[in-house]
């Protein structure tokens, strides 16, 4: 009731500058930018000092950086690190599923609405928290895949009139007949995420990525098993956020990330491109943009001052990591990543501090979100109450290992 469907996503205004993104995100850009700003060798020096710091923190058993803390995160990355776009679990072609032909049956057909329900049910079974379906928009697909090392050449991503997707040393080919995108949000473990910025807290993101790889690869195989083509993607190949906005998963918030009404911004996004015809979902409006205009809690909480304090979203980007031509509260990703290096973690304070990031047990959260959606005049009160009740504060990393909770059950 308080989550309204709308024809266009909030903050959907775009200009002629909006084009396919280069694919060079902050991770690809940080090294050259650091060198450009602080001189030759500055990136390498930063990496070396980070490595020394980690070793010292492990030795002194700094809370959140003990050996078990660090290795918990490393273990959680395993599935994601064992794959890469176009290969392994994220293969653009069939891995092991039997085709309908092999089972002596034609491919599965059903009305688009029924097909959408079938795919969503499968996605939820595999671990999706939220699922939406939207038409393919080529403008959201990256121009190329970021190179993995300096020696490698860029691999361009192209759309062609072909029957099946393909991956070569130089190109990723998406068939033009792939007109549907299944967008999936994987909720992160909130109890673990509340321990950021530490190596222990990073495990929540790591696990989110590994779950994403598992969910999209399983769903892609399911779709192939029905007799259609499917391309599973995590962060790679295309911008997940605009697809998620179009699919009605959430709205774009002040932290320039997707905020969902159910889990706030504490989700990982992934998607599957397919030629399986399905009914599409509509974008949603739950009053987030108005809330973000007044709240600014994430910007206050950000230790690197990377988030915007502007009252209104604008078209003004903050660097080459932002894709121009659309309205947003753009962030300074350079400052953000610099803090990652200092804290030896993937931070995530903005995710935890957002008032929409809440557990799902207390009824009051639903009431507050509903009221914020229909009566924005109450938004400042909710921000004050959120602080007063102590939400968004870092929890003691050391307690995670002994607490009795689903993610840290006592033996």
């Amino acid at each position, binding site marked *: 009731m308080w989550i309204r469907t709308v024809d266009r996503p909030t903050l959907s205004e775009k200009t002629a500058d909006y084009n396919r993104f280069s694919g060079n995100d902050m991770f690809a850009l940080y090294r050259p930018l650091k060198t450009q700003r602080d001189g030759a060798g500055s990136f390498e020096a930063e990496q070396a000092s980070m490595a020394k710091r980690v070793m010292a923190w492990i030795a002194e058993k700094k809370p959140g950086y003990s050996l078990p803390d660090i290795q918990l995160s490393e273990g959680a990355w395993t599935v994601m690190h064992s794959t890469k776009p176009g290969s392994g679990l994220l293969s653009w072609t069939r891995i092991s599923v039997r085709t309908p032909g092999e089972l002596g049956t034609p491919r599965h057909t059903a009305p688009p609405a029924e097909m959408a329900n079938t795919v969503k049910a499968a996605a939820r079974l595999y671990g999706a928290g939220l699922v939406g379906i939207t038409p393919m928009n080529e403008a959201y697909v990256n121009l190329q895949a970021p190179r993995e090392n300096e020696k490698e050449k860029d691999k361009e991503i192209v759309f062609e009139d072909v029957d099946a997707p393909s991956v070569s040393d130089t190109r990723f080919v998406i068939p033009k007949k792939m007109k549907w995108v299944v967008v999936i949000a994987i909720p992160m473990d*909130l*109890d673990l995420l*509340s321990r950021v910025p530490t190596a222990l807290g990073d495990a929540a993101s790591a696990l989110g990525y590994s779950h994403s790889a598992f969910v999209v690869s399983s769903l892609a195989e399911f779709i192939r098993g029905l007799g259609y083509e499917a391309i599973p993607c995590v962060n790679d190949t295309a911008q997940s956020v605009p697809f998620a906005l179009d699919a009605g998963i959430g709205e774009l918030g002040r932290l320039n990330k997707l905020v969902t009404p159910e889990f706030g911004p504490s989700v990982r996004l992934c998607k599957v491109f397919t030629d399986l015809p399905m009914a599409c979902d509509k974008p949603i409006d739950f009053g987030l943009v108005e809330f973000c205009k007044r709240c600014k809690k994430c910007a206050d909480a950000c230790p690197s001052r990377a988030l915007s304090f502007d009252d209104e979203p604008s078209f003004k980007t903050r660097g080459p990591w932002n894709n121009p031509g659309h309205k947003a509260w753009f962030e300074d990703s350079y400052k953000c990543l610099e803090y990652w290096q200092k804290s030896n973690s993937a931070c995530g304070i903005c995710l935890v501090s957002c008032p929409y990031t*809440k*557990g799902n*047990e*207390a*009824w*009051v959260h639903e*009431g507050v979100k509903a009221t914020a959606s229909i009566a924005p005049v109450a938004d400042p009160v909710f921000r004050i109450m959120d602080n*007063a*009740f*102590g*939400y968004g*504060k870092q*929890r003691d990393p050391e307690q995670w290992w002994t*607490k009795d*909770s689903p993610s840290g059950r006592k033996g």
Partner: protein
Amino acid sequence: MTRGADVFTVTIRKRTGWFWGLAGLWLLLEVLFVQTAVASVGEGEHRAATISWIVVGLLAAFACFAWLRRGGPRKRGHSSGQQQEASISEPTSISSVD
């Protein structure tokens, strides 16, 4: 019941809509904050749980205070302007001559 010179007067006070409205609101808030307090422990939000329990206690204390205040004036034979009264002043089966 007021002892008069010749008769007992039985006063029946009807609860007003305001009373039931406030009582309903109080009950709703109590249930909401008890649920929030219990759920917040499950969510690991201990400060939220503590504050919720304090609010539950304050609401309960307010209700006790209001109840006692209501009882006081009635014993003294006062009637609230908000309350409607139905008085039986003629000797009836429920009245008795002193």
